[in-house]
């Protein structure tokens, strides 16, 4: 039998065993979360103490005069910009400054921090790797 027929036969004969068992399935008493982190601590009395610092807070800038909306019109053509790469960012922002310093003679290979070089991610609030913020 063809693949379509086999799959259809399997679906007709019984439940789909390979689909994930989520909180939407099962009886009413079945409780299951979807992977959210606890925003507090569970004590030995089974009391839950909420920690405000763990509760996520959405910071939304003022959207007055903001023209972008959730969806894009179907009439819009495909974008012509290529995806941004690290090399492109470097050539746009950092390379001109390094070239200028080299021409002036003030380039110091031991002091690359002034061009934005970060030798380590320790101490940063938003570390790039390993990523410690949620996007």
């Amino acid at each position, binding site marked *: 039998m063809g693949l379509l027929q086999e799959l259809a036969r399997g679906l007709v004969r019984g439940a789909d065993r390979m689909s994930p068992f989520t909180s939407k399935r099962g009886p009413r008493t079945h409780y299951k979360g979807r992977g959210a982190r606890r925003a507090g601590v569970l004590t030995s009395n089974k009391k839950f103490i909420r920690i405000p610092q763990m509760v996520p807070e959405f910071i939304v800038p003022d959207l007055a005069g903001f023209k972008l909306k959730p969806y894009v*019109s179907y009439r819009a053509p495909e974008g012509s910009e290529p995806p941004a790469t690290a090399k492109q960012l470097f050539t746009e922002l950092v390379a001109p400054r390094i070239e200028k310093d080299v021409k002036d003679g003030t380039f110091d290979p031991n002091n690359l921090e002034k061009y934005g070089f970060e030798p380590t991610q320790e101490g940063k609030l938003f570390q790039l790797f390993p990523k*410690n913020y949620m996007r």
Partner: protein
Amino acid sequence: MERGLQRGPRPGRGHKGGVGGGGAVLQLPACTAPLQQSPHRRGVSERLQLPACAAPLPQCTAHQRRRGEGLQLPVCIAPPRPAPLKGLRLPACTAPGHALRELEGAGAGAMRLSAVLAAARLPPGYRHGTWPPDTAAAQRRNPPGQRRRRVLVEPIDSEDWKVFQGDTVQVLSGKDAGKQAMVTQVVRARNWVVVEGLNTHYRYINRTAKYAGTYIASEAPLLLSQIALVDPEDRKPTEVQWRYTEEGERVRVSLRSGRIIPVPLQPRRDGIVPEQWIDGPKDTSVEAAMEKTYVPSLKTFEEEIMDAMDIVETRKAKKSYWY
């Protein structure tokens, strides 16, 4: 022979059936009239008086040079030079069969289940209805393993297909013979065309135990032999042929008047025609979407927002490890 090489598909049919009257010069209507007579007819020496029109009048220079006549021969049956290579795909049609063949030809690796199902071939004796094969109605009528008597369908090349969704056609036979309407659906597998409001029968839908249902008119499909495309000028049914303009564009030409019948904008699989889309309240306008407002910087998005909103964070997170 040079003549045989330059002709397109089925040259004989075009010359026999296409030319209307005898050798008299036809009265041209006010609109664009690309082709009046076959370029190969003998005795046509009078220069055609073509009215001034905004549309350019393409010329078939190949035949002109060969015959040595001063005729304006706008639309040529022969394919444009250089001749299309063998295996070259003509304008892709939206029929699902061709999409399937392209998918299989690409040889995509790990596809999702839905993509695998979409690319699965239909069984050999599949009975096509007026619904696409992946809809619930089609799956209910054609469960896997069902075998029905084959319906005989006249084989028509996909390149020779002339009727598209959105065309105006006239019904030639049947209950609504002589009426014109727009094509709402085309089923190429059975040479079917569903015309809006014509060839209707009546039925009840949304029937429940308490409600008898709504009485509606539903259209039955018509075969290609029962309809004819309508010439936009005189609004009469005509025979249509695929021809090439001088620019190399493949167009449908009415054989009676020579007018080009443009192919209407085809909707996508989800029924949307982007050129006719009207923006809703949640749609970003085209100008706003195409505006380039990105300023590259070495800061992350979160750091930029912190700077913009003057958020100061001096606390340090505890060190954590992952393996």
